[in-house]
């Protein structure tokens, strides 16, 4: 261990491991740590060798040998502190549009059931809107044990303030320990308001949710740095533990209309502020045919490597053959060959078809995050090193212009045989 001039054994940060989160900077009691070129650096002459930075570093980037007592174990009373506050149950926000529940809400109820079983607690639905009783019953059929509803004409369309206040009020009354919201435009607008009002933690766009067994905390995993890195986040001291989740990350559970559950109606206490008014709704003029690629069981996805006009009819034929439709990666949209709503990936649509057939798709991370949930992935690419092959169930290395016609022929043969 390196010593400073006072003979204190100091901590050192390994710059290649440091992720620049600055947690140690804030934690250091003597201000010995500073940021330099995006990495934390410890001034050895100021360091008192307390090891606090070592304890808080999420990536083990601090080199420090502990001499004193092993890490303090949290007292059981402390652990119980938050359970004492009576936050119980896993809640889901049920997004409703024109009396129809959003699919992502049902997906979240399915996940909430799994979490609730681990915690031995109930699944709660929060539903806001006007004339939304059908959605409340549907939420029970998908797995809610109870649904709390605020049904009011003021909530007919979504306006941030009244929705934010109504949902905050419900959380304060019902006190769930976990609260999940679909990461739709509406859900993301709303979640930030509620978390700020409740002064609790909110983790955006989670792709994985689980329970840590020691303290029963929610572990929320999400892509960060544009999908290049995954981070697992937790919220120990505040309730509810809130998270938004993108559509199609979790599977829709089976619906059971015979399921029992309770519906509680609450009264809206509207905010006193002057509210915005909705003037118009312009439905997306879907360029071309208005298809929603996320609804097809099979997708033939054109990538940068298959980005030319002549190929398109061939891909259409292949798509017809596998009962799907042609989609694409971002470069194809940028080249003007396909409309934006056919784009798969982080800035496009998240898809999870039964069959994903990538033609000339190299597999940039931003594309992969939008399709990794696909059941079977086939990749055709001329570059044997293309990252798409790492997520593909089966790959063909070669020129798509030679491969696709053969693929079409062979598929036709097999279909005839069946």
């Amino acid at each position, binding site marked *: 261990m390196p010593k400073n001039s006072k003979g204190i054994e100091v901590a050192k940060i390994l710059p*290649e*491991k440091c992720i620049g989160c*600055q*947690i140690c900077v804030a*934690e250091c009691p003597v201000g010995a740590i500073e940021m330099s*070129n995006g990495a934390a650096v410890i001034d050895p002459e100021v360091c008192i060798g307390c090891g606090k930075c070592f304890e808080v570093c*999420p990536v083990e980037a601090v080199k420090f040998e502990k001499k004193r007592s092993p890490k303090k174990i949290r007292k059981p009373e402390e652990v119980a502190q938050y359970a004492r506050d009576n936050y119980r149950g896993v809640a889901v926000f049920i997004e409703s*549009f024109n009396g129809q529940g959003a699919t992502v809400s049902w997906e979240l109820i399915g996940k909430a059931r799994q979490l609730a079983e681990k915690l031995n607690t109930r699944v709660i639905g929060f539903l806001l809107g006007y004339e939304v009783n059908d959605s409340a019953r549907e939420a029970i059929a998908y797995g809610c044990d109870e649904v709390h509803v605020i049904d009011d004409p003021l909530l007919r369309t979504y306006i*941030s303030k009244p929705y934010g206040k109504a949902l905050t009020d419900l959380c304060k009354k019902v006190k769930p320990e976990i609260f999940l919201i679909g990461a739709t435009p*509406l859900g*993301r607008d709303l*979640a*930030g*308001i509620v*978390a*700020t009002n409740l*002064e*609790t*933690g*909110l*983790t*955006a766009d989670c792709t994985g949710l689980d329970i840590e067994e020691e303290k029963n905390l929610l*572990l929320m995993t999400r892509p960060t*740095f*544009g999908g*290049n*890195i*995954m*981070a*697992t986040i937790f*919220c120990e001291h*505040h309730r509810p533990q809130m998270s938004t989740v993108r559509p199609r990350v979790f599977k829709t559970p089976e619906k059971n209309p015979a399921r029992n559950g309770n519906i509680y109606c609450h009264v809206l206490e509207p905010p006193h*502020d*002057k*509210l*915005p*008014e*909705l*003037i118009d709704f*312009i439905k997306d003029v879907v360029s071309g045919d208005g298809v929603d690629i996320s609804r097809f*069981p*099979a997708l033939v996805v054109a990538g940068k490597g298959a980005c030319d006009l002549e190929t398109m009819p061939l891909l259409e034929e292949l798509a017809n053959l*596998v*009962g799907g439709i042609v989609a694409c990666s971002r470069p194809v949209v940028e080249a003007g060959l396909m409309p934006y709503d056919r784009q798969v990936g982080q800035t496009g649509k998240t898809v999870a078809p*039964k069959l994903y057939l990538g033609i000339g798709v190299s597999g940039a991370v931003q594309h*992969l995050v939008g399709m990794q949930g696909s059941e*079977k992935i086939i990749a055709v690419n001329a570059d*044997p090193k293309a990252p798409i092959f*790492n997520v*593909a*169930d089966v*790959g*063909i*290395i*070669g020129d798509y212009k030679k*491969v696709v016609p*053969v*693929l079409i022929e*062979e598929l036709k043969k*097999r279909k005839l045989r069946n």
Partner: protein
Amino acid sequence: MHFICCIKQVPDTSKVKIDPETNTLIRSGVESIANPYDMVALEAALTLKDTCGGKLTVLSMGPPQAEQVLREAISCGADEAILLSDRAFAGADTLATSYALTRAIEKLAQKTPVDIVCCGKQAIDGDTAQVGPGIATRLGYTQFTYVTEIKEIDTVNARITVKRKVEGGSEIIRGPLPCVLTVELELAKPRRASLPRLIHSLKSEIGVWNAEAIHGDNQKLGLKGSPTWVKKIFSPPFKEGGPRFDARENPRQAVEDCLKTLLADETFAFHLLKQWGQ
């Protein structure tokens, strides 16, 4: 009118990667840039200022180097720049960030009342889109997220009309000022600085505020004020991938081998060849 634009300095995320061998961040060649969404917010604020007149203050929170993005904003036309920089702000999550920014906006508003706060819809390093709504909620301002167009600003009745993205389309919505706008990239194309402005920006003074300056409650700032903590960081799950067949010599053989592998899963084969039962 008084406009405020919040700008974050972010690493160029497209260049941040994890070394698969050592599981550590590869940092070399990763430069800091102004969050692209925030530059569109700046353009929106500048356009509003051009239309209505008034003052534009830019605000950032980060280490001392973050003043670089504020100078960039001044070079584009911002009048005043404030950098929130203090050890006490370090390690802030979105809740603690919106708290610090709100305290700063409140302080600015004491001098000159604020009409519109412009933010990018999200920052490209975290992609949370939570700070904008956090600021709007704390200030009690009207909140418009995912704004793609500013339709009209009515200074007489203190209200604004915007077009914003919603599920399946866009809505036109009119609401009272003061407000917070979070903007989409398509709203505007950021302008370029003129040479005189560029020189002016280099000479401009950037106000640096610490926790004391914004009268921040230390329990709500930085790491202490952050309910969420990072437990661990890792590379996205790495998959080997299935078998690969080389079609460069014999495409037919490769396709046959590929289909054989794929259709070995009988249930899958059945559904595929029967068009998923449709």
